[in-house]
């Protein structure tokens, strides 16, 4: 039986592990599937110990085939299971992209609501870990662009725990982006707390001069930016979106109506990125409140660079501060 207690200092990866453990424990229909998720416990150890405790029929080492993983998860879901599948790295989801986009996303609509596919696709994503090609990408917009999918990304251990619980309980397919460079970041996790809704943003720091919006790995950076800006007498509000689809525009609007300035930060390329959608909608909603155009900080329109160049590619403190300065200069 999973215990309901408060963990003072739990790593984000461990929080997901505990959340999966709880789900496996409380719902016999929950399955964990993926490459190396069993004995090894996943390359990031997110599923560590689960196969030992729940057996090979619940925690399944699959053949090396992502289309197979998601395709069979769809079949299992049709049969009443709730599969949580792991894609080993962001860059390896694409063999499964067809199943996700053409099948997983559309089945509910096609069946006029008769068929629900409660599949969670876990994807460790993002850069900053000095990895080789295909191990550092941020493809969330490629999924958010597809109706029928929900796309979320926690920024801290507590959210990771609770958002995973909620994603598994969701009757819609959820693409669960895990910020791999934050896997080892620790925070308090209260497994008794009653969480807020899955798809709402949260103000993680209040401010009056400008709103910084981020999710996943960039939330921590934005908090650091706010600290740095505070030293210069600037009061920045930081919003953790938590969900990319649906997107909590109300929360962003409320913040922007107060601060009148918005900078969106993500690792993904800005071109057709989630920041573009946010900029467009917020411009519509807050046209008369805005003192400056919505600015975006993110990756360039270039393939993710080799590790020794990723620092120049990824948003960092200076680049976000630069955008903050530009916004405030209007």
């Amino acid at each position, binding site marked *: 039986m999973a215990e309901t207690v408060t963990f003072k200092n739990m790593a984000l990866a461990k929080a997901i592990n505990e959340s999966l453990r709880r789900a496996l424990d409380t719902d016999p229909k929950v399955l964990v599937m993926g490459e190396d998720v069993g004995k090894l416990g996943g390359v990031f150890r997110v599923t560590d110990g689960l196969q030992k405790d729940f057996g090979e029929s619940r925690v399944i080492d699959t053949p*090396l085939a992502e289309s197979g993983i998601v395709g069979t998860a769809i079949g299992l879901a049709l049969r009443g299971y709730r599969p949580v599948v792991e894609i080993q790295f962001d860059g390896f989801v694409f063999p499964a992209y067809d199943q996700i986009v053409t099948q997983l996303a559309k089945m509910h609509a096609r069946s006029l609501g008769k068929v629900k596919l409660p599949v969670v696709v876990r994807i460790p994503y993002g850069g900053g870990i000095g990895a080789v090609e295909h191990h550092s990408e941020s493809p969330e917009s490629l999924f958010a662009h597809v109706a029928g999918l929900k796309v979320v990304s926690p920024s801290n251990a507590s959210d990771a725990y609770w958002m995973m619980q909620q994603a598994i309980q969701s009757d819609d397919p959820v693409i669960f982006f895990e910020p791999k460079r934050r896997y080892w970041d620790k925070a308090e996790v209260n497994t008794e707390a009653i969480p807020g809704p899955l798809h709402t943003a949260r103000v993680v720091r209040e401010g009056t001069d400008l709103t910084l919006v981020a999710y996943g790995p960039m939330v921590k950076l934005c908090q650091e930016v706010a600290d740095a800006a505070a030293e210069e007498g600037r009061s920045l509000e930081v919003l953790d979106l938590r969900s990319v689809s649906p997107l909590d525009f109300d929360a962003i609007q409320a913040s922007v109506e107060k601060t009148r300035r918005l900078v969106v930060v993500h690792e993904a390329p800005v071109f057709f990125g989630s920041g573009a959608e946010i900029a467009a909608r917020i411009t519509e909603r807050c046209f008369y409140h805005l003192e400056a155009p919505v600015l975006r900080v993110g990756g360039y329109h270039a*393939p993710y660079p080799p590790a020794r160049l990723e620092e120049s590619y990824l948003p960092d403190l200076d680049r976000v501060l630069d955008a903050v300065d530009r916004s405030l200069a209007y």
Partner: protein
Amino acid sequence: MTVESTAARTPRRSAGSDAGATGAQRTTSTTAKKAVPAKKATVAKKASAAKKASAAKKAPAARKTGGTKPRSAEPHLVQLLTPEGERVRNAEFDPYVSGVTPEEFRGLYRDMVLTRRFDAEATALQRQGELGLWASLLGQEAAQIGSGRALRDDDYVFPTYREHGVAWCRGVDPTNLLGMFRGVNNGGWDPNSNNFHLYTIVIGSQALHATGYAMGVAKDGADSAVIAYFGDGASSQGDVAEAFTFSAVYNAPVVFFCQNNQWAISEPTEKQSRVPLYQRAQGFGFPGLRVDGNDVLANLAVTRWALERARAGEGPTLIEAFTYRMGAHTTSDDPTRYRHDDERAAWEAKDPILRLRRYLESAHHADEGFFAELEIESETLGKRVREAVRAMKDPDHFAIFENAYADGHALVDEERAQFAAYQASFADADGGK
């Protein structure tokens, strides 16, 4: 003393130059054969010699292994050298290596020793923080050198990320393999200089590229062949199955060379297949066989056989080289979590280098002087690799914006300019102080 690979090698772009005379040979008929044009590479020359030698045996050989006739359900291992280094006779495959001279035997040994040395050096460099990651080929030297040395210059290779021994055979400077593992580039060599494609990390993709390339070779009427490397885990990927389908339907001159090293990270081969992997070929309508992956001579023989089939218009072949990943999956991996040491110990006894050494010694193909000299050469290579890696500079930041497109792109130009202005703002700030 040279530390380059043995085969003399001239850069060439692709196989198109061989088009013409042999074009008509690209048929499915097993009788439509033609002598391989003379090639510079010494080992390739032996291949055509082996072909002549095997001509008489060709018909029965084809009956036994060719077409769609199923082989025995028992995994049958082609082995020409036992782990003790004894030469085993094999009527079917001996002809492909009967012409291997003592010098060439020493060459194969040298290739394996230097490849292993390079690999060990790379692992050490990762430990020292010079590389971000390394995927060791330890234990797979025979599969890679044997198959790699069967190739002609005009053949084309599609590797995974572990084919350091094949790269060596192709004459790719080993230090060029290290750039992507150090994180200074995503490639590191010109694929067309050595007909050795870039490493492919996304499992299985390259099997289709190899098949398409082979379809092109066939369209050109050239008698080059293509070889695709992949692992036991990769055999599960849709791309690999589709490559089998396409290559069979188009009778593409491609050899699928699967190194079954028993593990796909933590998953043993049983998690990928119920049948021995080489038997997968049957269902697609082309021959497959299993070779002792730690026997360099057998790998040379079966790859020559498969390449010859490709050149003769007989289409694809699947070779399953039965071997073992002696090290971790990569330097990031901890195999103690999923496999026992005794398994490794059992494979240690089948070491590819040790067995060839035993053979060389018992056949008096090499003396102490040879081994001593090789040791020195090995040291020299290690030193060169260390120095080259440490001297590898981080690329200029603007490299991010280079080569995303062949014809350029307005947004890339705009972002490059913004990036430049941003970088310059630091210089201004510094200058202002």
